[in-house]
């Protein structure tokens, strides 16, 4: 694909493409056909359909895009990506939008970032995750009521079935992992 | 000449497929390495191995022979003869110490402008990595010191 090089400062549209691996350049070729939004299992809960997000990116509506809950409602099912007639890596773009929203300080309160951040925090210290422990910590920190509900409901079930750990396992070489991740952070910037 | 090396590729392009592929690449404004110097022949079967040798002798860093895909030759099977000659020539050139990348055979149909452009780009990169051939100066020493060249043993 030929891509015209310009000297203007990069827009959010450009950044999204630059920060997404794969054939993100195809985003330029979006037909606005709506296959992504039509395919999306959580589409009805998004405040803009993925297609609309792409139109907004093109229109320079950066604030609205980064404020949107759309990427946070992406369930990573990849239907949009395999169906897109222009082969746009839509799911990967949703991940990029999340990262950019965090970097730019957007995103709505009590939405996914905290969950993701809790998760990452945990993995960085232990090398492994235990989703239920993480969920519990996340709820305790952000939604105490939810934590109670969870503990009393499915948490209890799982605990009984021996499927819920209260003590996480830890990998042996945590220091190696930490140096890798620190270096990666240094190289990666926030996005 | 500066240190920067731009390889020179002579291209023998068949009139019906590859020459038109290059036309199409241009018409479609596909930008590719300007290192190819195309010569039109009616068929890749017209390419006499002497042309290839002479191109190398006359300063080219590589030669690209391009014809129609097997089965699509405008003259039924001229390209098959080109392939047979190319295969034997390649084996002979190997004895001459000439790297395989320097003489390449490509099938590019009239609709494959992108294929041709990509092949030229790739070949240019190959040759850039190999460095200049400049048979006259570097091998035969045409620049004067020619026959006095005494290789230290």
């Amino acid at each position, binding site marked *: 694909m030929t891509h015209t090089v310009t000297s203007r400062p990069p827009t959010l549209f450009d950044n999204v493409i630059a920060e997404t691996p794969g054939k993100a350049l195809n985003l330029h070729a979006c037909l606005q*056909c709506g296959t992504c939004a039509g395919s999306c299992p959580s589409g009805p809960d998004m405040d803009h359909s993925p297609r609309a997000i792409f139109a907004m990116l093109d229109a320079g509506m950066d604030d609205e895009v980064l404020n949107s809950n759309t990427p946070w409602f992406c369930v990573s099912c990849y239907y949009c990506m395999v169906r897109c007639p222009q082969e746009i890596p839509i799911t990967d773009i949703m991940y990029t939008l999340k990262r950019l929203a965090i970097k730019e300080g957007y995103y709505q309160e009590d939405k996914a970032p905290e969950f993701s951040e809790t998760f990452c925090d945990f993995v960085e210290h232990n090398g492994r995750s235990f989703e239920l422990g993480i969920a519990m910590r996340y709820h305790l920190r952000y939604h105490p009521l939810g934590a109670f509900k969870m503990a009393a409901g499915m948490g209890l079930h799982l605990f009984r079935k021996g499927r819920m750990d209260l003590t996480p396992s830890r990998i042996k070489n945590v220091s190696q992992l930490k140096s890798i991740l620190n270096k990666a952070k240094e190289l990666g910037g926030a996005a | 000449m500066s240190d920067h090396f731009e390889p020179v590729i002579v291209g023998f392009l068949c009139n019906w497929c590859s020459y038109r592929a290059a036309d199409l690449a241009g018409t479609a404004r596909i930008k590719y390495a300007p290192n190819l110097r195309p010569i039109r022949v009616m068929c890749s079967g017209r390419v006499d191995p002497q042309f290839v040798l002479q191109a190398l002798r006359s300063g080219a860093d590589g030669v690209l022979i391009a014809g129609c895909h097997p089965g699509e030759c405008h*003259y039924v099977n001229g390209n098959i003869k080109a392939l047979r000659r190319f295969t034997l020539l390649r084996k002979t050139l190997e004895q001459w110490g000439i790297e395989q990348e320097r003489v390449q055979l490509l099938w590019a149909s009239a609709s494959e402008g992108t294929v041709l452009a990509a092949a030229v780009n790739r070949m240019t990169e190959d040759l850039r990595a190999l460095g200049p051939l400049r048979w006259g100066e570097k091998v035969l020493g045409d620049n004067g010191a020619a026959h006095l060249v005494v290789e230290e043993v």
Partner: protein
Amino acid sequence: MTDQKKSPAEQEKVGVYICHCGSNIAGTINVEEVAQWAEKNPNVVVARNYEFMCSSTGQELIENDIKEKGLTRIVVASCSPHMHEKTFREATERGGLNPFLFEMANIREHGSWATNDKEAATSKAKALVNGAVERVVHHAPLEKIPVDINPNTLIVGGGIAGITAALELAEGGHHVYLVEREGTIGGRMAQIDKTFPTLDCSACILTPKMVDVGQNDNITLLTYSEVESVEGYIGNFNITVRKKARCVTEELCTSCGICEEKCPQKVIDENYGAGISYRKAIYRSFPQAVPGYPVLDKENCTYFQTGKCKVCEQVCPTEAIDYEQEDKVITFDVGNIILATGYDLFDARQIPQYGYGRLANVFSSLEFERMVNASGPTAGHIVLRDGVTEPESIAIVHCVGSRDQNHNEYCSKVCCMYSLKFAHLVHEHLPDAEVYNFYIDMRTPGKGYEEFYHRLLNEGTHFIRGRVAEITDADRHPGEEGKLIVQAENTLLGIQQRTPVDMVILSAGIEARHDAEDVSKLFKMGCDHDGFFNERHPKLAPVSTMTDGVFIAGACQGPKDIPDTVAQGGAAASQVAKLISQGTVLMEPVRASIREEECSGCRICNTLCPYNAIEFDEEKFVSRVITALCQGCGTCVAACPSGVIDGAHFTYTQVMAELKGVLWDVQSDVLTKQEVA
């Protein structure tokens, strides 16, 4: 020894003309610099640069310089020779020189358009110009070779394109061989019910033409036949056709249809019936078939499979059934060929999320076309797969397999219009049914087409702008039970919609025939990367191909509606008629010839010519080229170990001169003595 005589080449006076082509060339290449540089070549008398060399003033420059400056050779550096070689050869000739004393350097397609690097483009242009100058001084005057045109024509494909072309030629008094793979001519148009936007009955306008074909003495109709080989060249093709055994003696058959009626073996008619109806093992695709003789389908015939039955033989009143009949191989000569092999429909099973083949009430467009046809399986009633229930709601899905990188990137051009036609037919047949058309963009360019769209808007069709994501029978809510749910984003509202319907029609796109590539090889022409046949020029030669004497018409060249197809059939016929009335064509004199007195008779060249243009003289022990058969590829020239075969206009000296010319800047300064000598 070296400078005693000037080679004749150095005595030529060359004129060099560098074209700006507006900014197409001059925007990237420093044309002035190239011209000034070229003038330094000892053979060059004058080098000019001019804005448009192909303009009449540009051509006059050449003519005047030949006359005034006594030029003997001309070089024009401009576009591809495939574009203007002819133009400048003619200018050269008008100036008084043999047109072959001209050479072209392609500095546009191969130069200015291929790079943005001005310096590199300028230096490449110098190399190409120099190559042309060094070459042209070795050019020799040549005369074109006249070739007679056989007035007969082969037309492959008996759809509306082939029918049109055949009738045009036959009615003009020329003989045509019309070869059709199926048992009858008619093609896709015979399957269709109504044509958009006029809603004419397709059969009503097609069948009279089919009958005309059947009755025209100038048309040899070869149905149930396939072309096996094609040899020769424009004016003189030799064709071999295999006429498959239909197990019916044509001379005896009266087309009464009793065999078909009595045949006990029912077969799904995948072809004409689009898989939605049945036919017998001995069958005519439809009652108006031309010719009217049936075809016996051996693979499904009970007699051929089990050895018992022979019902058709017993009921035939004229003893026309012949189980022993064998394929016939027919050969004939023609001067020109028209390919009108049509298209395949995109197979919607490649998009599993649309459920075709899994969900019974998802239909392909051709299935619907047959269903709504009065001669179809339901006599024109629109019903669900159970054959009885009338749908109350129908979704028509546009762009199935088209405009999709995963399948075909191109727009199939006819689907929007036929989808609108379907919507109209539903309204007509089932006035109470709701119709939903799901589209990405509504494409209705054509006479009366947009008006037809407006008519459908008025008829109350629901148009939803959004490409369908999936079609499912998995209901979520009570309203969806037992329905097919069409899920798509209504992009104009920005919301995801689930539309429950009874029936879905998939408007599948047009694809190249699955065997188009084999056919293109058979006729020695090319396919584009979508598999459609390549035309010679997308604008100016839409029905010609790269192979002289081979023309294309209709959807084999790309998606097309009926009016365009008919127009192309006519255009191809007129191209052929032009050649027939010319009687001869002048062929490029690019031909091989053997210097017999120097031929050692080694016979290396004897097997190389694909046209058998080289013969061996057993008396003189030398090989000889039959000029009329030679096509000028030059393979023998390259192979001759004695170097005694000359390839006119591509001689050893000419190519070597061009080669050294394009390498002017990289040759070593000091040549070895041998080369100076």
